[in-house]
């Protein structure tokens, strides 16, 4: 069985151990990934050799930074297979990207009679901006529910589209809790058949699966750099040229204008129109390194490797008595495994696993509506990336089994309080 273990050497942080010399098993990748040396080097190289503000600077450093910044855009356009480079807008993150669409496209296109369709599995980033839009224009928001087996069937999508005739169908390509991926192309086709615009939250798919926005035929796609081995502080908004051109700018400031007078402003062309202020220059350059890095490994390889690890962990964890797996038994799965234990709250689980060197996340993972639907307020989530190993999956299984035992009731008696 091929592994990607050799990649670990590229990641300085993965060489570290936590307390008492236990090697770190970093299984919190759905929250944010780690960076290979090449990405870190891209950052230092820029700051140490050629950094200057971009746009219209005609000295050597600014020309070099501008060229590298726009080259990054070209690489990202290739990474998602966009038709035009200027369909790639750099934002502060996936959240900022969704807000841009909800405000700019939303205010222009959505009225009180319209409906926005979401799934109950959405991250807050793909819920709250639409709720803010609803508060402002009075539209309705509908949620596709989860089935008992944790899936959302395409039939349910079709009938919801029929019933609600939404103006926008915004959904995640891969759930950050359930470990499932959704059939993006099919859902988008259906949505278009029903006249809906489509936004795809690719925050959890971009790091793990080949992306092809043209094959998807998506109207808008968003993701974050920090989840794909890239730096903090940058995300991508892809939008079809026609849609982006028709939208008013979102944030105002330098760079996004063609002209400003005391009477008003004319916006610049794409992509500048949506990039107000000094952009995340170094972050963009480092993001290019990141997508080059994962592309060189191969996203197909990455996906397969993660599926192997997650399936192994899933199978092992299901053997533990009192563990409820939050995700379908069989599924188009990604590298995420979430569960609850009957004897231990997820915070205690995460805390105890940390003591074994295993980093997982506990809580609602920014999906409170999903957790409410699942009847729990918190889950424990392990999320694998390509640099994780079978050994780490085994450590996870063993450590969870131990935690479940540790917090099981044993007939303890509290000591009467000593006075004072």
């Amino acid at each position: 069985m091929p592994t990607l273990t050799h990649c670990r050497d590229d990641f300085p942080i993965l060489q570290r151990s936590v307390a008492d010399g236990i090697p770190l098993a970093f299984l919190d990748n759905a929250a944010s990934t780690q960076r290979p040396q090449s990405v870190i080097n891209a950052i230092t190289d820029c700051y140490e050799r050629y950094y200057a503000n971009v746009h219209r600077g005609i000295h050597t450093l600014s020309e070099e930074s501008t060229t590298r910044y726009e080259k990054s855009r070209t690489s990202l356009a290739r990474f998602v297979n966009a038709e035009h480079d200027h369909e790639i807008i750099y934002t502060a993150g996936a959240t900022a990207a969704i807000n841009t669409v909800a405000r700019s496209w939303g205010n222009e296109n959505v009225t009180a009679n319209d409906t926005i369709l979401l799934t109950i599995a959405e991250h807050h980033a793909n819920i709250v901006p639409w709720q803010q839009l609803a508060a402002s224009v009075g539209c309705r928001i509908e949620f596709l529910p989860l089935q008992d087996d944790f899936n959302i069937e395409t039939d349910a999508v079709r009938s919801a589209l029929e019933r609600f005739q939404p103006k926008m169908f915004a959904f995640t390509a891969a759930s950050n809790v359930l470990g499932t991926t959704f059939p993006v192309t099919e859902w988008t086709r259906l949505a278009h058949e029903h006249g809906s615009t489509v936004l795809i939250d690719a925050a959890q798919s971009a790091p793990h699966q080949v992306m092809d926005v043209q094959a998807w035929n998506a109207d808008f796609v968003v993701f974050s750099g920090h989840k794909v081995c890239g730096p903090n502080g940058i995300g991508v908004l892809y939008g079809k040229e026609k849609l982006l051109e028709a939208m008013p700018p979102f944030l105002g400031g330098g760079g996004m204008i063609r002209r400003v007078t005391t009477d008003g402003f004319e916006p610049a062309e794409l992509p500048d129109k949506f990039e107000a202020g000094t952009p995340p220059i170094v972050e963009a350059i480092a993001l290019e390194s990141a997508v080059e890095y994962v592309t060189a490994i191969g996203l197909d390889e990455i996906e397969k490797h993660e599926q192997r690890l997650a399936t192994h962990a899933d199978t092992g964890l299901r053997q533990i008595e009192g563990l409820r797996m939050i995700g379908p038994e069989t599924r188009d799965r990604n590298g995420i495994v979430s569960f609850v234990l009957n004897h231990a709250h997820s915070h205690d689980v995460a805390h105890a696993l940390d003591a074994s060197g295993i980093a997982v996340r506990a809580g609602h993972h920014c999906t409170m509506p999903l957790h409410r639907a699942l009847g729990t307020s918190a889950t424990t989530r392990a999320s694998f990336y390509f640099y994780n190993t079978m050994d780490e999956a085994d450590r996870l299984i063993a450590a969870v089994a131990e935690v479940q035992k540790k917090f099981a009731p044993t007939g303890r008696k509290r000591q009467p309080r000593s006075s004072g």
Partner: protein
Amino acid sequence: MASEQDIYEEHVLDHYEDPYHRGPLNGATHAHEADNPLCGDQIHIDLKLTPDGKVVDAWFDGEGCVISQASASMLVETIEGKTLEELQQFSAQNMLALFGPKLTPNRQKCCLLSWRVLQSAIHSPLNPSDDELGGPSFSGPSLGEES
């Protein structure tokens, strides 16, 4: 292993499995309830105060992690017999000290939930006319996203 042994000390687990005064209190004069939506921890506290403001009886109920539940148990155990003034002087730092094991900021929030509920409960008479103390006003470490 340091951190695990640090916080799940025997007396913490004892309070978790065998809590002090867990359940409703009949005849409570004051009560309050709050949650930490970000973790799902929930704490309800019932108090019976004498007319001159002494805690005769204190009970809690709730759901959540070991820290939130064990600390609540320790809190209701420790406040019985105390006066209102003493409760108001009981700071967040005192609460963390009562709990014992040193907590990181994220886990402090779990531990301070019951303390916050208590500080509100003493201002929340079940018969509103009993409240001669004004609105809650307590200080302590920032509680982040919690209300």
